[in-house]
């Protein structure tokens, strides 16, 4: 997030796109509700009708995967009506002309044909966004989990840059992070191209700095992105160490991944619970969970906060970092960390962005937002104040590309997947909580009444959902919350894995998989099968 969670309540215009905020980020949704209560305008762009869209001034119910059309058409309106912030563009950006040229043909009327959103709603939204001072964009995986996810993000950034909604309170570009420490895992360097603090592994200076700091030779060759790695499992990748993720539940097109897993030579799994991936593990190392260990998480707004040990882990389970240090020691690397404060201190030693942060400061100040380059730096509430962080803000012209797999005569529906309020991702935690399990016990599929009727499906009926890659069963929820021609399923249920269906087509830049669009179909389950169940 360029801005902070606490600024949301003061916003005057909220553009929420590809984010089911009430369910995935309930506390941020509360801040949005607070802004609405004080008179802010809310526009929700989402293929589904969600709780937040009921509170919205406008719900732009676009066809899945057509975001670039919507966003470019908004840019078209903003430019055409002279609503750009020319002073900001001149002072802080480059590449504007290319975008102006690229969006020339994206008229709201043509956008209506592609997205299904009335042209006047696109125009209204564009005008309000451009002319409201405190206007912020909030998005999550509905933007990124597409084969053109990067294009979606660029198209959003273009809107932010051309209207100058950057470097000011309650504005900016705000991806809401899905996991407690997904920001932090990237910050800490658990990425194939960056060492801690977004320093490239192939930058000679960075490379030399870390070889000296760690006292070992390092590879200057960027590694594999997770999605590339998963496709390479059983081929180039023959040994895996997996900490705290059930890849066989969470990665797309899991049946192909399973084939690869059969061919790998060695798998170490480190987790708190048995999971699907454990079937292929050679060694399983029991890990402590958050309440049993010390450390820090970094949240969506770049705020480093403490995790504190409250109870002892059960049995022989141990904190992950201790296990990892033991593994390193067993192959001849004794790092001699005595506690997590020392680990954090080593991390910031070579990462200027975080240099001013320490466990000690976080303990006394309650949390610190990076960039925080020095021990006397107060941290940074919102980014890009008084200009753009790195030189000039770069506009990126993007053109619409359809999703990789669109419906055809055999698989006639568009399937999207997502999270619900009552469960969390692989649900190893939430499905072990009786109350949540009672509220939402098993897999369901949302289907529009028209599509249900075509297939003779009634509400609550057990049905089969299938794609080119696999089949699962689910309870049909017949509802107008989804568009005609679209279905939606949650990703939490191990016995009906959503990712048996999803497409592992990746974004050209990030390789992020297209969890939000693939072609699928729903059918009744024959009577004899049901009775056998």
């Amino acid at each position, binding site marked *: 997030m360029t801005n902070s969670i606490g600024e949301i309540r003061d916003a005057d215009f909220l553009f929420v796109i590809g984010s089911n905020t009430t369910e995935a980020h309930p506390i941020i949704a509360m801040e949005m*509700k607070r802004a609405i209560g004080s008179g802010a305008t809310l526009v929700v762009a989402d293929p589904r009708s969600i709780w937040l869209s009921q509170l919205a001034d406008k719900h732009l119910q676009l066809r899945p995967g057509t975001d670039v059309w919507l966003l470019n058409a908004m840019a078209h309106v903003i430019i055409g009506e002279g609503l750009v912030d020319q002073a900001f563009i001149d002072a802080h950006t480059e590449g504007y002309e290319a975008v102006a040229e690229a969006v020339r043909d994206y008229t709201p009327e043509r956008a209506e044909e592609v997205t299904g959103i009335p042209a006047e709603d696109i125009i209204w939204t564009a005008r309000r966004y451009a002319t409201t001072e405190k206007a912020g964009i909030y998005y999550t995986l509905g933007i990124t989990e597409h084969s053109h996810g990067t294009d979606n993000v660029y198209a959003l950034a273009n809107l932010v840059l051309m209207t100058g909604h950057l470097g000011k309170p309650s504005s900016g570009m705000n991806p809401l992070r899905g*996991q407690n*420490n997904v920001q932090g895992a990237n910050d800490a360097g658990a990425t194939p191209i960056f060492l801690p603090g977004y320093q490239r592994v192939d930058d000679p200076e960075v490379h030399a700095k870390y070889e000296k700091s760690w006292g070992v030779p390092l590879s200057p060759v960027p590694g594999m992105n997770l999605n590339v790695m998963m496709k390479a499992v059983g081929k180039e990748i023959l040994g895996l160490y997996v900490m705290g993720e059930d890849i066989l539940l969470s990665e797309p097109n899991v049946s192909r991944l399973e084939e690869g897993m059969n061919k790998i030579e060695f798998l170490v799994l480190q987790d708190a619970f048995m999971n699907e991936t454990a079937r292929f593990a050679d060694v399983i*190392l029991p890990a402590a969970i958050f309440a049993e260990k010390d450390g820090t998480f970094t*949240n969506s707004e770049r705020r480093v906060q403490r995790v504190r040990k409250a109870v*002892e882990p059960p049995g022989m389970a141990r904190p992950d970092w201790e296990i990892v240090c033991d593994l390193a020691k067993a192959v001849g690397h004794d*790092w001699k960390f005595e506690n997590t404060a020392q680990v954090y201190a080593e991390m910031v030693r070579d990462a200027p962005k975080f240099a001013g942060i320490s466990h000690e400061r976080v303990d006394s100040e309650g949390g610190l937002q990076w960039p925080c380059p020095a021990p006397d730096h107060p941290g940074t509430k919102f980014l890009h104040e008084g200009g753009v962080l790195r030189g000039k803000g770069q506009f990126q012209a993007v053109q619409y590309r359809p999703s990789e797999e669109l419906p055809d005569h055999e698989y006639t529906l568009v399937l999207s997947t997502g999270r619900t309020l009552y469960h969390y991702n692989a649900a190893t935690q939430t499905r*072990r909580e009786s*109350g949540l399990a009672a509220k939402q016990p098993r897999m369901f599929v949302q289907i529009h009444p028209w599509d249900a009727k075509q297939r003779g499906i009634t509400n609550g009926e057990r049905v089969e959902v299938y794609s080119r890659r696999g089949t699962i069963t689910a309870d049909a929820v017949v509802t107008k919350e989804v568009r005609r021609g679209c279905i939606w399923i949650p990703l939490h249920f191990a016995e009906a894995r959503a990712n048996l269906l999803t497409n592992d087509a990746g974004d050209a830049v990030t390789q992020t998989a297209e969890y939000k669009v693939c072609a699928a179909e729903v059918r009744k389950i024959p009577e004899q099968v049901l009775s056998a169940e």
Partner: protein
Amino acid sequence: MTDSLELDGKRVSFSAGETLLEVARRHGKEIPTLCHDPRLKPAGACRTCLVEVNGFRRMPPACATRATADMQVTTNSERIQRHRQGLLSLYLTDHPETQPERLSKNQLVEMAERYGAAGDWGSMASERAGRREDRNPYVHFEPDLCILCARCTRYCDEVEAVNAITLAHRGAKTTIATVDQASLMDTSCELCGGCIDVCPTGAMTEKLPLTRQVKPSKHLKVVRSTCNYCGVGCQLDLNVDTSANEGRGKVVRVTSPETGTTTNDGNLCVKGRFAYDFVDHPDRLTVPLIRQPDGSFKEASWEEAIRVAADGLSRVKSRHGADALGFVSSSRCTMEDNYVVQKLSRAAFGTNNCHQCAAT
């Protein structure tokens, strides 16, 4: 824009829109409140925060009165004290005389003690309806303890914005209700538990700790930590029974820090507040396991498991090169866990094939 007024004889400044309560508290004055919560619009309902203002015949509620220039405000006087004692005594007539030790503090009882309110003004047992049959797993409503401050219903409306609960009926029968007294499970309730957080008397309380007969809060250790679910980074207080589990300790309740102090502003969602049973779940992995030639797992010591794991990964490296290894780190683990995993991948095994689910 700032202006000034006179607070207990002293000139103090205030900003436009501030209430007398906000100005007074900012200047360290003690004004009791029962229906007030900074997250909610002022209701002026409980009347405990009445102050004297020159030129006002009646005492106005500090929470709902905006500061204006040159106001002369008195926050403590004999008249105010008399009013507070009388009011709190009246509240006590509609409150159980003796109470079992509760999970949370009862602010009404504490306030009555602090201000010396009489506890013997008789009793008027109100017939407030509860929802004994509500099968929701988390929120318990104890109608006898309710003082109708409406913090819970206003929170449900103004903060969570689902309006699952409301004030219903009239007079002494007024209660906190759902539509047709339905279970919260069958309403628009999202089980955030905010009603519990704002309740001053413990009338709204956590059901699980109650049924499990958890020790009252003063016997629990409170550990401030960060929620382990989504990326908002809510601060939460793990309430730990340190003697449970043969001294390992057990998280028996989760509460939110005081409003205004953290990013989450005192709020939590259903997962953050209630989904903590996984910590202590019998399905937890507790022993290192090593796969046997017949496919089964054998329990092992840490020493042996680490050796087998290190040897296995090293063998792949020596056969196929370092880039035949992949390290999947976790956005669910700490900064420190992630730092050492990427260092393990790069410094100990020599590959940059290290990532986590941020790719998806």
